[in-house]
């Protein structure tokens, strides 16, 4: 996102209460179910079963003509098998159709039969097969058993990306009304309430206020509120017109992962940034990427529109994996040219640390911290270094997952790609196993994951595999170690720092972690950086 022109800021003193209604309010306020019916998702039509195969072929033709990746990937695969054992779902389920090339074959066989010369001539000899409702059943099962994580493509000699075929297949199914309930509901939430969590504007500002109050309680400082209130007592607020930065978090950060939101607010505060938030851009996620290019663009456009309306110079995306992948890949290409820059909060934070604009005291976080590379950041957007730089500065004991399981080789958590639903719990837990094992092997106490969906998945995954590991964002840890003048260290952090600890080898108790580590070094010959092998906080 380099060559974006800067917008001149002439609207600095527009009254924030005289703005045209923001886009999210044009949508009626109704339940997802009702909205689903009303929206009809523009391109969805419930097609009776009998007509589905025919309609599917029509939709396939459209997709094949629209995206070059689909035909080239289908044609190029040599069935060499290099991708076979790389998919976490294959590893977890051992179902042959979860091998990436075999998954693609479900689509390819129909493609061959109906769209290629070879398939028309040679039929099943080259694996071509007629489109039927049975095939469609297989599609539904296996294209909803793919998190679009792209691990397979890294191992393929041709870089064939099964995720692209999954997206195409899902879009085709959507055209005959076979979308995914969960994804549809989330998208309906977004169009209806403005974000995936379905938070109305008042709830949104309440939540931001809650985070500010948390900071005040814990640290005794007043951070700048990223909105304008007519009265200080008001619950409702408005975004600041003409602020320099618009911060767009995944709405889950205002709901469950509040520590991440708090971390972001502290970073902005410490850097003295002029930033705002807005209910009309209260969602960094973009579930369109999980099934439909139309929604993908539309949802992304809402952020662009709001940024333009407010006249900001920069949009910063929060800790969201697929949302950043979507934004990075399409925001300029589909909704540009842009009047503002686009940055990820991790890039932004890293830069502030490098430039010395924020200070971190890593001695406050002594537990072993590890990092899960969300596949959408690692493989979808090549965002790999900032989070490492940040964690090296925010925690004393940052340990990486084994190199063959991190960075672009990272295993997906198993909950991405629109699969984060209760109904798919069994699949999610099986698919999450490789990632859980990779993290277990590090022996960490805290897992940092800069992705809201990953967080939700790991919160279930860790207990499922009996791992006692605390899950949070990268910014959560920044929030613990950030040094702000006049602020006290949050009690919780202080306790963890100074708190009593116990040597698990001889059950001796100590007044602090440091003391225990000293003891472990002396008595058990365990070096200080491996202190976590012996000492546990109590």
């Amino acid at each position, binding site marked *: 996102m380099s060559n974006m022109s800067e917008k001149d800021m002439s609207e600095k003193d527009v009254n924030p209460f005289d703005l045209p209604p923001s886009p999210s309010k044009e949508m009626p306020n109704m339940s997802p179910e009702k909205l689903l019916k009303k929206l009809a998702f523009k391109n969805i039509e419930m097609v009776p079963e009998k007509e589905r195969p025919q309609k599917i072929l029509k939709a396939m033709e459209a997709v094949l003509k629209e995206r070059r990746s689909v035909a080239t990937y289908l044609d190029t695969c*040599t069935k060499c098998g290099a991708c076979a054992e790389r998919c976490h779902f294959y590893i977890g389920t051992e179902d*042959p159709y979860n091998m990436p090339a075999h998954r693609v074959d479900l689509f390819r066989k129909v493609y061959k039969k109906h769209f290629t010369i070879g398939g028309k001539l040679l039929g099943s000899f080259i694996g071509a097969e007629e489109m039927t409702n049975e095939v469609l059943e297989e599609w539904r099962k296996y294209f909803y058993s793919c998190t679009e994580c792209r691990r397979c493509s890294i191992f393929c000699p041709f870089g064939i990306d099964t995720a692209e075929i999954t997206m195409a297949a899902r879009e085709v199914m959507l055209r005959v009304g076979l979308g995914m309930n969960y994804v549809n509901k989330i998208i309906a939430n977004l169009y209806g309430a403005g974000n995936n969590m379905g938070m109305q504007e008042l709830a949104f500002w309440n939540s931001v206020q809650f985070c500010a109050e948390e900071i005040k309680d814990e640290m005794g400082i007043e951070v700048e509120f990223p909105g304008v209130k007519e009265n200080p007592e008001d619950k409702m607020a408005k975004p600041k017109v003409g602020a320099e930065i618009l911060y767009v978090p995944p709405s889950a950060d205002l709901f469950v992962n509040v520590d991440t939101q708090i971390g972001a607010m502290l970073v902005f505060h410490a850097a003295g940034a002029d930033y705002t938030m807005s209910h009309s851009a209260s969602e960094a996620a973009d579930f369109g990427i999980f099934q439909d*290019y139309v929604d993908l663009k539309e949802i992304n456009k809402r952020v662009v529109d709001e940024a333009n309306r407010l006249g900001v110079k920069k949009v910063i995306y929060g800790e969201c994996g697929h949302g950043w992948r979507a934004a990075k890949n399409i925001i300029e290409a589909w909704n540009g040219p842009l009047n503002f820059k686009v940055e990820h909060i991790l890039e932004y934070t890293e830069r502030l640390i490098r430039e010395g604009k924020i200070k971190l005291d890593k001695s406050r976080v002594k537990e072993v911290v590890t990092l899960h590379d969300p596949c959408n950041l690692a493989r979808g957007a090549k965002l790999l270094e900032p989070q490492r730089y940040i964690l090296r500065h925010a925690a004393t004991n940052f340990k990486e997952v084994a190199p063959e399981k991190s960075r672009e080789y990272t295993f997906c958590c198993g909950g991405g790609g629109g699969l984060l639903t209760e109904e798919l719990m069994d699949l999610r837990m099986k698919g999450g196993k490789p990632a859980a094992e990779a993290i277990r092997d590090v022996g960490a106490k805290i897992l940092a994951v800069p992705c809201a969906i990953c967080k939700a998945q790991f919160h279930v995954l860790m207990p499922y595999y009996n791992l006692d590991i605390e899950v949070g964002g990268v910014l959560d840890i920044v929030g613990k170690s950030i040094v702000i003048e006049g602020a006290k260290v949050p009690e919780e952090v202080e306790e963890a720092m100074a708190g009593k600890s116990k040597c698990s080898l001889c059950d001796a108790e100590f007044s602090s972690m440091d003391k225990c580590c000293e003891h472990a070094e002396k008595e058990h010959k365990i070096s200080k950086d491996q202190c976590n092998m012996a000492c546990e906080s109590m």
Partner: protein
Amino acid sequence: MSVIVTFVGIILPYITIVAFFGGFIYRIKGWLSIPVPMPISVTYPQSRGEQVKNIASAILIFPDLFRKDRNLWFGAWPFHVVLAIIIIGHWRLFMDIPDRILMAIGYTTQGIEHLSSVFGTTVGIIFFIAVLYLLVRRITQVTLRNMSNPADYFVLLWLLGIAATGLTMRFVGLPYTNIATMQNYFWGIFTLHPIAPPTDPIFLTHYLLAQLLLISLPFSKLIHPIGIFFTQGIKHSLVVQKQVR
């Protein structure tokens, strides 16, 4: 001339030429006519020199595959290398250029014949073994067996057939595999004045199988050498080389 000889030696070659070149153009044009709505963003090395170097190595030594699936690399890389050598070797049947180059660097006609018989035969045997390896791999590995259709085995059997007939000709030492005879024959085809091909059944089998393979090339998975320029393969090797330190 019998019907078979006429078909394999005089009619089929024209079909092959049209299908092979026409097929590739048709496929590439087809791909190029589709838009790329979402270019997947990756970071490239900055300097052009580095880019060229990485792309060349991606195509020539499959470094990505070496790093990530060594068992497959040990089948696929030697296979492609000897395939390339074999293609260059067959060039002699159409043109003098390879011979002239060899002569320029000091080979005698006899020396070239010697090189061809020793080196060519060795390469042929390696090719045979490499294909066999790929076939055994496909049959024995559960993952591959699961995702293969009949044609996936058939291509490999076919290649074995081509290699076997080719090697047989070498071992039997058929006199008309003489360069001059073949060049005359091929130039007859190219100048649209076809003359009778050699009629030995082993040669005709080799020739028929090879032509059918060439015809199917643009329409099968064997289009992958072109496909790699359209997929992410080269881009990946650019990125990953940079990041695996």
